[in-house]
């Protein structure tokens, strides 16, 4: 391909995503909303500025642009851009991820439906309008059950409920509407980064996930580490199941982030998305495999990189652990700066200062920062994260009990 043929429409990109396209020699046409424009692209970049999630002019205007400067595909790496990008591809007859596949990954009800039809990853579930509906499922699978908003992301609104009263609370919190109730899957959690090349799925990394205890019935991720410690058989099973699931959902191109549980009955799918994982997993993958998933996405969509034949072997391990102090007003925070240059510490970001209020962690947004470390293997990387977090001392204002806090 000539470089001038490598043109992509980027829907809702971050500035980093747009810049990476430029580095790869890809002509980017940016679609972004007015409020995101400044953070999406350098000033001279051709752009269509509107609310791409709902503006009816999105597709007609993009079509007009496409006639002048044809795109190979419309690509998005952000949650709210995935579906608009797919709709645009369909309207412009471009070969990327179809709308149906995106909808099947975004809507958990549809995903379960498709997997059930394909006979994959059996999980008992029921669409519920009220706690009474939840009771019906619980009569079969027992409490606790998991309640999920059908189209939620980042575990937001996902609750583990142990009784009808808790189910009632969950519906009250959800403010009406449907919730998907599922059997609680026992087992360790992992996420799987894969990339699909014309329907051939290559698993690039399996990441161990650590979730904050289920004490308050919430699922908040407080750590990731890779490459996951798995036996060859189990890893092969994960690759097989994830590949089958992506095929069943019709996802044949680009990145996917699939969350799974390794239950005593085998691999079960929690959810999947047609984008790389968030929560710094992208950086962890790059640290360990050298693969930049954003670059691979852009390069493959633009037709300027070769398909990977097989996974890239991991070099060492990497982990991220999030800072989760107890609630209270922060009086002081020390130790953050001393971490620079510490062996194995790759990145530290603590968004907490004196006077800030630490709230109880009920979602990812409530976490107070993170430490990312590398090591020869996961235990070393995790140990380094824990040690680094242990050096961050948060003291509380007198109104709350003064204590030194570390990550859970």
């Amino acid at each position, binding site marked *: 391909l000539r470089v001038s043929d490598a043109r992509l429409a980027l829907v809702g990109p971050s500035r980093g995503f747009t810049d990476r396209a430029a580095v790869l020699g890809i002509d980017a046409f940016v679609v972004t909303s007015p409020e995101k424009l400044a953070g999406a692209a350098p000033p001279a970049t051709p752009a269509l500025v509107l609310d791409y999630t709902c503006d009816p002019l999105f597709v007609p205007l993009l079509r007009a642009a496409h006639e002048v400067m044809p795109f190979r595909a419309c690509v998005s790496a952000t949650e709210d851009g995935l579906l608009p990008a797919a709709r645009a591809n369909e309207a412009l007859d471009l070969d990327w991820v179809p709308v149906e596949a995106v909808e099947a990954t975004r809507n958990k*009800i*549809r995903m*379960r*439906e498709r997997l*059930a039809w394909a006979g994959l990853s*059996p*999980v*008992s*579930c*029921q*669409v519920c309008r009220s706690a009474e509906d939840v009771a019906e*499922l619980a009569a*079969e*699978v*027992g409490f*606790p*059950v998991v309640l999920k908003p*059908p189209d939620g992301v980042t575990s937001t609104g996902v609750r583990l409920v142990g009784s009808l009263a808790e189910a009632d609370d969950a519906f009250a919190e959800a403010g009406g509407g*449907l919730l*998907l109730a599922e*059997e*609680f*899957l*026992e*087992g*360790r959690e992992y996420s799987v980064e894969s990339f699909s090349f014309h329907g051939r799925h290559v698993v690039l990394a399996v990441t161990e996930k*650590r979730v904050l*205890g289920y004490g308050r019935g919430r699922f908040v991720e407080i750590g990731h580490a890779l490459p996951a*410690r798995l*036996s060859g*058989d*189990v890893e092969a*099973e994960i690759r097989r199941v994830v590949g089958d699931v992506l095929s069943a959902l019709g996802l044949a191109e680009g990145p996917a982030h699939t969350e799974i549980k*390794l*239950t*005593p*009955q085998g691999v079960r799918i929690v959810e999947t998305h047609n984008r790389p994982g968030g929560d710094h997993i992208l950086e962890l993958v790059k640290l360990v495999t050298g693969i930049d998933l954003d670059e691979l996405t852009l390069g493959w969509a633009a037709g300027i990189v070769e398909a990977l034949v097989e996974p890239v072997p991991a070099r060492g391990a990497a982990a991220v652990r999030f800072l989760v102090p107890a609630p209270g007003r922060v009086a002081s925070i020390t130790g953050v700066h001393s971490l620079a240059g510490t062996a194995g510490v790759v990145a530290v970001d603590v968004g907490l200062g004196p006077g800030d209020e630490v709230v109880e962690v009920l979602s990812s947004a409530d976490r107070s920062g993170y430490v990312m470390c590398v090591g020869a293997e*996961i*235990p070393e990387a*995790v*140990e380094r994260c824990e040690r680094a977090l242990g050096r961050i001392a948060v003291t509380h204002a007198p109104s709350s009990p003064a204590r030194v806090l570390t990550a859970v």
Partner: protein
Amino acid sequence: MSATVLVVETNSVGNGTRAMRHAQARGFRAQFLTRTPAEYRSHEPSPLDVADEVTVVETFDVPKLMRVAAGRRYAAVLAFDELRIVQATILGELCGAPFNPPLESIVTARFKDLTRRALEGSSYTVRYAIHSLSEPPRRSSLGYPCVVKPIDEAASEGVVVCRDSEDLRDAVEGLRAMVSKPNSRGYRLLPTFLVEEFVEGEEWSAELVWSRKLQDWRLVGFTAKEVTPEPYRFEVAHVFPHSFGEARDREILRQLRDCLRMLGLRDTLVHVEFKLRGDRIVVMEVNPRPAGERITELVERVLGIDLVDLHLAAHLGVADEALRGATADGFAGIRFVRPQRAGTVERLDVIGDAGAGLLALCLKPTPVRVTAAEQPHLRLGHVIVDGSSPEEVTRRLDEEVRRVRQLYAVREREVARE
């Protein structure tokens, strides 16, 4: 009146009931002790019908059991689950059972920390540390991976392989939840647990019986087992007999005898679970009773010997006679049908024709409710096959289990109600 054999409860596959039948066939009366007769309502045949005498007594309470047995003489006292084996041995001692195994050795085998202590210093054990839930360790002093296990639970429940200190903390919390209430059989676990070195590799079991003639253990056979992947290791299939090669079989038997001597066991039948580290065995646990998991049925098919009867014979001092003439004929295996998910299994359909070698394909009557909590342990049935080689048996087991279709109530499709 003829002499009496006393049986304390029975396990879910009815070994206690079979023991009473065998005792009666050998001319003994059979007495059955149970804390909850209602527990056996679904057993066919019911131990309550088979026994010549049934006594209801709290079988976890030793003084009450002793009160029931005081003043009586028994030819043998047997139990078939870990939770009652010590009680049975105490009653055997109290009531003059002539070939009762030594009580201390039974206690040693019953509690995994005592087993580890008894084998300490030998190559047959692993490095271990004993901990209390009141003061759990933050890190494993043995490194990782390590294994956390309760000292007094059966069937690998609560046994977790930990990869790091975070896993260890999770495992301890899991144990804390298990200890907080009685288990499904009404037994409350001790708040003590082991952290053990993890031994890589497959696990086997061995059935051995005490020979009064040899004054040593005779090997009935080795069994190969298949387990689910780490970290759960639930048993899913067994094939009997397994051979490591003639010379190696002899060497493993020598080491097993050495171990059992160290534990002080005799006059019973044992089911030993072990792994191999190079050419040395590493003992996982020793159970002075016939194997569970229907391995008894595999042994019966291959050797024509019922391990339950052999257990009884060992306790009556006549195991040598019971073993006479037993020669292996082929191989047999069992694979369990496990639920694919939680929910109500409305139907279990068997499709296609039975393959060669099928001996049993038993499925639970439907509907079967499978809760998420029970799902890992619950079995919907099993298949037993035989064959001329272990490979043939394994292939036949896979083929037979694949014929079973699990049809659940509409819970997966109900998503379409949206």
